């Protein structure tokens, strides 16, 4: 038994360790983010975020300003991407749509993650709490994202807060289960036993020792969840239960473009390309982090 433990905890042989010596000299996240995959993702996400942040400077028109010039093509003077059916500048709509989307997911995903992690830590503290929290997670997971969205908006009505709530609720069980699994694995490790023998209280050991070691998958999950959040927001706006019009969101602009796909495909192109870039970028970052952490 002792021999087995020694083997598991023993340092790997020098021959096996040598090739990874250089990357391991840096923090694994930095290593992950320096890969070509992650850099591509960072560039894509950075461009979209920057476009959203600089929307007031880049947009020449208000995103809700209408005119008689409907469905103008790209390159129309004053309207780089053209106009929508109500004569609103498409570039402004897309840029401010990014802003709205980012504002929502930047609040919703961390909120969902924090609540999920908190519940996971509560679950890890006591078996009864674990059972209760697990059933709560089961309940939330029983609703597919869009059903949850329709249920929440049926009660609260459409708007920004219901969208944030739906995304956060959808993420709670995802983060909670991930962290709970990590905690269950980590608390059987010998360093935890050592910490307890050293006089650490249960909660102190959980927060100071177990949590930092179980948190790696959460970083990957945040990138994945941001991707999912973009989809949920887009889908809710597309279905007309998202942010209230005329406030632009990428999903809402896409929804408005549907009747004009044949006669004005540029109407849909802006939000489609933006959503694709954002989702692809976040996915590449998540993938790079995942690969590095799994090593």
């Amino acid at each position, binding site marked *: 038994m002792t021999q087995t433990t020694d083997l598991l905890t023993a340092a790997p042989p020098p021959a096996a360790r040598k090739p990874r010596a250089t990357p391991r000299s840096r923090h694994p996240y930095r290593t992950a983010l320096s890969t070509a995959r992650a850099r591509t993702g960072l560039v894509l996400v950075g461009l979209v975020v920057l476009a959203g942040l600089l929307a007031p400077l880049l947009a020449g028109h208000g995103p*809700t300003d*209408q005119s*008689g010039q*409907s469905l103008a093509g790209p390159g129309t003077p004053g309207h780089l991407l053209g106009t929508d*059916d*109500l*004569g609103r500048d498409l570039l402004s709509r897309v840029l401010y749509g990014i802003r709205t989307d980012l504002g929502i997911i930047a609040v919703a995903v961390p909120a969902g993650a924090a609540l999920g992690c908190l519940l996971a830590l509560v679950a890890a503290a006591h078996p009864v709490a674990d059972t209760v929290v697990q059933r709560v997670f089961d309940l939330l997971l029983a609703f597919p994202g869009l059903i949850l969205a329709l249920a929440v908006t049926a009660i609260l*009505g*459409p708007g920004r807060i219901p969208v944030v709530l739906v995304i956060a609720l959808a993420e709670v069980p995802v983060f909670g289960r991930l962290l709970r699994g990590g905690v269950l694995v980590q608390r059987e490790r010998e360093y935890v036993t050592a910490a307890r023998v050293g006089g650490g209280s249960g909660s102190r050991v959980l927060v100071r020792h177990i949590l930092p070691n179980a948190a790696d998958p959460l970083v990957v999950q945040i990138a994945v969840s941001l991707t999912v959040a973009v989809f949920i927001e887009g889908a809710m706006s597309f*279905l*007309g*239960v998202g942010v*209230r*019009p*005329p406030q632009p969101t990428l999903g809402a602009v896409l*929804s*408005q473009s*549907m*009747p*004009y*796909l*044949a*006669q*004005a495909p540029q109407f849909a192109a802006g939000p489609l390309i933006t959503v694709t870039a954002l989702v692809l970028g976040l996915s590449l970052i998540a993938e790079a982090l995942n690969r590095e952490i799994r090593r």
Partner: protein
Amino acid sequence: MTELYPLTPSGPSRRSTLRAAGGGALLLGLGLAGCRSAVSDTSSAPQGASAEPRRGGVLNVAVNADFTPALLFAQSGQSLQQRLIYNTLTRYDDRLHPKPELATSWTYAKDGRSITLRLRDDVTFHNGRKFTADDVIFAVKNLQNPLRAAQLRSTAATVTGFEKRGDHELVLKLAHPVNNLFDLFEFMIIADRESVEDAVAGKKFIGTGPFQLKKWSPGSGLSLIRNDAYWQPGRPYLDGVELRVIAQADALISSLRSGQSQLTFDAPGKSLGAVKSDARLTISDYDTGAGAVYLGVNTTVAPLNDRTVRQALAWAVDRDRLVAQTLGGYGLASAAPWPKSSPAYSEANRTHYTHDPAKARELLKSAGHSRLEFPMLHIALPGETAIAESIQYDLKQVGVHVTLQPTDGATAQKKLISQGMPALWSLGHGFAQVQPSTLAVSAYPFNEAKNTSKFRSAAYTKVVREAWTEPETDTAAANALHQKISRILLDEAFLIDLVVRGQLQVSAAGLHGVTLNKFSYLNLDNAYLV
């Protein structure tokens, strides 16, 4: 011996022969293809225009929503199947003159308090039972039943007595004269009285119409087959009709373009850009006036209880832009609810309010307001949202800031009926396409006794009751009453009409003989496919 000069080839080489053959084949193919396409075009065009009606074939109709059996006797969102399975007593022509259907002729009593109907004696229901006057009595009583939620219940309720004169003559006795009895006859389907409860439960649909039900798949559509015992000899031409539910407008139009469907009335005007350039499809605009766009005003919410403020809103909206940008150019910008086919229509009323933001601001200022804030309900569908956004923008220009409240259709309908609307709402209304009095006694937004705007006025009630009970429909007196109704609607502006819409039909070029009645019942008696 070696030849000094190569022989001049006496014929083409193998390679050049192959090239020439290939090129020739290509040109021949292109030429034949061109000829074939030209022949097809020239042969199909006159065939479609002048060919004799052709028997057979199944017509596929694309609809965006399934019908609701519980609303079979009310005006619901999907009414196409009504005249396919059932018949009505009469039908209007384009000038609102009633024409015979199951009733062959009729005579009004001089005092307008009864009408004698003579009925066809050669009509049988799909189950083989003969149609008699008892079926008409049942149909009227059925619409008097509050459970049926029929909008024309008030008109049905004026029938207080029945006198049968044999199986095919009937006298309807009225509590008072009404001038929209033929609206009732156009609206009221004659269903088999023994299976009506099964019909509203969605189990059995038995009528006297040209088609009988083969199958109803809830959410997917209706399958109908030809009624071989139909009372019109030789009709219908079609073997069957399929009503297929295709909810998305793009998919619906794609089904037409690909030939999977040959007819729809549910394509939004703004989605028809691709259809206009497709020679295989034709677009027809019926002047039914069904589905007019309006801005509703809750007159109990201050300061909307002030008529001047409501009139300011009416001046603020750019109706022409609304038609052009949100309805694809299909519709008539109008301040009054009446379509051009209505006896109440007048150009002066239509243009009573035009887009005049300066005048709107001036009226608001005179009422003591420079900035107002209201919620506005609308249905959360792309078309309706675009209309609401357009209105919102126009109102903002005159200092009226509107917060949109996207709502699902069922909730909106519930609020409309229960007078639960917020300060403003944008929806559509019907019932302006028939007798003008019907609008004011039957449509929820206009009903003089109980309307969604909670507007009450003794003058409005008086003029509506007078117009409704005026026995003649085409006299100067009736027209004067219609004008009075219009004047009250325009002056009081408790409901601000914006666009009068018709019914857009998109059909395959080879489909002929399709008509709609005033309540959007599809009539395919004379329809055929070429």
